[in-house]
C-alpha cells in the first residue's frame, strides 16, 4: 500500500503557508538610452524605421533638395509599390518558414492574362480582370498544394513552378508586350490603378500605391488580429508543435501560398497601371528584391518571426537608397556596388541595435 508515498509528502509539508504573491522586481530608474533600448526591444519594427529615416536624412544632405522634395519622395513610394506588393506576399510565405521564388512569375503571368484577354481575345475587361486575378490565385494554390499535400520543400516547388509559370508567360504572350495604347483602347480599367491623386507640395500618390497600403493593412490585421494569423506564426515557428497543438498546418500552408498568389495578381494589376502595358519581360529579379525587402524588414527566413510593417520599411529602404544614389549622381556601376554595401550596413545596424537592447 501507500507505504512509499512518504518522501514526497513530507517534502511538501513545507509548502504550507507558501508566499502567494506574484514575483516582482524593482525597476531601477531608467536613463533615456535605457528606455530607448527597452522600446526597441519591444517594438523591433522600429529598427528598420530608424534605418529608413537615417537613409532619408543622409540623402537629403548628399543629394540636396531634389531628393527631399515631396514629389521625389512620393516617386520613391511609387517605385517601391510593386516590390512592396510582392514583399507582402513573400512575408506571408516566409513567416511559415517557406519561400516563394515564383512571385515574380505569377505576377507577370497574371498581367499577361489580363492584357491578352482584353486586347487580343476581346474579352470584356471586367471579366479578364477577374480571370487574371484568378490566375494568380490558382498559381498560388498549386504551389500551396505541392508544399502542403506532397510535402515538398517550398524552395524546390516554387523553383519548379517559377520555370513553369515563366514558360506559360512566353507561351501565352508569344513574347509580345501588350501595348499601352491597345490596353487604353480596349480596357482602361486595367490601367485604373495608375491614376494619381495630387497631394500638397507636388507629391503624387497612385491608386496602385494606395492599393498596396490597403493590402498591407489587411494582411497586418489578419496576421495580428485573427486566429489564422496566429496559426501562420505558430506553423512557421515549429510546425510539428503547431500540428500537435491542433493546428491544421496543411490548411495554413495552402492558404498562405494561395493568398500570396492572389496578392501577386493584384500586384500585376498595379503593374499594368504603373507601366501602362502588360510586358512578358522583366521582373526576373523581382523575387530577390522582394525577399530582400522582407529580410531587411527583420523577418526571419526560418519562419515564425517578422512583420508586414517591417517589409514595407525594408522595401522603402532599398527604394530610398536607389533613388538617392541616382540623384546624388552616382554612376550606375557604383550604384549596384553601394546598394550592396548599404544593404549589409542596414542589417548590421539592425543587429547592433538589437544586441545592445537585448
Amino acid at each position, binding site marked *: 500500500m501507500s507505504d512509499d508515498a512518504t518522501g514526497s509528502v513530507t517534502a511538501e509539508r513545507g509548502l504550507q503557508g507558501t508566499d502567494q504573491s506574484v514575483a516582482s522586481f524593482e525597476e531601477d530608474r531608467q536613463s533615456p538610452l535605457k528606455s530607448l533600448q527597452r522600446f526597441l526591444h519591444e517594438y523591433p519594427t522600429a529598427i528598420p524605421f530608424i534605418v529608413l529615416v537615417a537613409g532619408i536624412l543622409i540623402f537629403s544632405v548628399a543629394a540636396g533638395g531634389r531628393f527631399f522634395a515631396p514629389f521625389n519622395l512620393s516617386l520613391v513610394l511609387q517605385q517601391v509599390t*510593386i516590390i512592396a506588393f510582392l514583399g507582402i506576399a513573400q512575408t506571408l510565405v516566409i513567416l511559415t518558414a517557406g519561400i516563394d521564388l515564383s512571385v515574380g512569375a505569377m505576377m507577370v503571368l497574371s498581367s499577361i492574362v489580363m492584357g491578352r484577354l482584353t486586347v487580343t481575345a476581346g474579352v470584356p475587361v471586367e471579366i479578364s480582370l477577374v480571370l487574371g486575378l484568378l490566375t494568380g490565385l490558382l498559381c498560388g494554390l498549386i504551389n500551396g498544394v505541392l508544399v502542403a499535400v506532397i510535402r515538398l520543400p517550398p524552395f524546390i516547388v516554387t523553383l519548379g513552378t517559377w520555370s513553369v509559370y515563366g514558360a506559360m508567360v512566353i507561351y501565352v504572350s508569344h513574347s509580345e508586350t501588350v501595348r499601352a495604347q491597345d490596353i487604353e483602347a480596349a480596357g482602361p480599367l486595367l490601367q485604373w490603378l495608375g491614376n494619381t491623386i495630387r497631394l500638397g507640395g507636388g507629391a503624387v500618390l497612385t491608386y496602385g500605391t494606395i492599393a498596396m497600403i490597403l493590402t498591407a493593412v489587411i494582411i497586418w490585421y489578419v496576421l495580428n488580429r485573427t486566429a489564422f494569423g496566429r496559426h501562420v506564426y505558430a506553423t512557421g515557428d515549429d510546425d510539428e508543435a503547431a500540428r500537435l497543438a491542433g493546428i491544421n498546418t496543411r490548411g495554413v500552408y495552402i492558404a498562405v501560398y494561395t493568398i500570396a498568389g492572389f496578392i501577386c495578381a493584384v500586384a500585376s494589376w498595379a503593374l499594368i497601371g504603373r507601366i501602362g502595358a502588360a510586358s512578358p519581360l522583366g521582373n*526576373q529579379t523581382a523575387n530577390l528584391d522582394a525577399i530582400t525587402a522582407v529580410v531587411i524588414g527583420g523577418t526571419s527566413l526560418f519562419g515564425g518571426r517578422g512583420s508586414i510593417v517591417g517589409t514595407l520599411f525594408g522595401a522603402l529602404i532599398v527604394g530610398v537608397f536607389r533613388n538617392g544614389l541616382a540623384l546624388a549622381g552616382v554612376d550606375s556601376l557604383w550604384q549596384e556596388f553601394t546598394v550592396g554595401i548599404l544593404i549589409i550596413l542596414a542589417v548590421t545596424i539592425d543587429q547592433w541595435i538589437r544586441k545592445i537592447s537585448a
Partner: protein
Amino acid sequence: ADIVGLITKTEGNPFFVKMREGAQAKAKELGLELQTFAGKFDGDNDSQVAAIENLISAGAKGFAIVPSDSSAIVPTIKKARDAGLLVIVLDTPLDPIDAADATFATDNFKAGELIGQWAKGTLGDKASSAKIAFLDLATNQPTVDYLRDQGFMQGFGIDIKDPKKYGDEDDARICGHEMTGGAEDGGRTAMETLLQKCPDVNVMYTINEPAAAGGYQALKAAGKDDGSVLVVSIDGGCPGVKNVEAGVIGATSQQYPLKMAAMAMEAIEKFAKTGEKPQPTPGKEFFDTGATLITDKPVSGVESIDTKKGLELCWG
C-alpha cells in the same frame, strides 16, 4: 551644368559599357552632368521606368535610352516628354517608333541580314544543303534576339514566317535553336547540344561574339575548328573583330554604340541650348548609325570591310 541621362539595358554587356564610355567622354567635353542607369538583366523594364522617373525628378534636360522592352516603356517615355525632356532612343526603336523625339539606331535586322547574305554567298551551291545551328539569346526572345535571328534567316534565304519570332520556321536546314544568355559558357553548352543533334552542322549563327567564342570552343572540342563550320556573329566589338582576324569567326556585323551615344549627347545639348530636335535619316523613320559587315573573306555582292579597318572602328 545641365543634367543628361543615359539608360542602358544591362551593366555587364560590353556594348553598353562602350556606350557609357562614349557618352561620358562627350558629356565631359560638352560640360554636361551625366547620370547613368542600367537594368539588372536583359528585359528589365522596371528598372528603366524607375531610372526615367529619377531623371525627371532630378530635372534632367533629356536622356538617351536603350529600351529593354520597346513597347512597355512607351507610357513612361511619354511622361518624360510631357515633362519637357528630350528623349532619344538608341539601338532598338520604340513601338511605335514616333514615341521618342528621335531614334539613333543600328538596324539589328539589317545586321543579321548582312551576315546571312555573307554566309549564303560563301557557301555558294552548298547553301541549299546547309545545316545551321542557331545560338540565340533567351527563351523569351527579346527584340534584338528575334531581329538579328530573323535578319540572318532572311539574308540566308529562309522563309521566316512571323518576322517577330523565331522557331516557327520549317526549313529543313535549321538544326535547332538553343539559348546562350549571350555569354561564353552558354554558347559552349548550346553548341555541344546542337552538335549532338546534328553532327553535320556547317553554319553557326550566334547572337553576339561572346556566344560565338563559347560555341567555337565546342567546335574545337569536337575537332571541327578546321573551318568546316562557318561562324557568323554580330556586334563588332574589338575582341570580336580580333576573333574574325584569327579565323574563329567568319564574319560579323559591326555596330557603333560609342558613336550613337556621343551623338545623343550632342543632340541633347543642342536641344537644351536651342530647343532644336534632331532629324532622322532621310527616307527612314530613324537616324541610322549603320551596320557594317566585317570579314577577311569578302563575298561579291555583299559590301564589307576587312578586319584591319574594323579594328580601327571597333568599340572595345
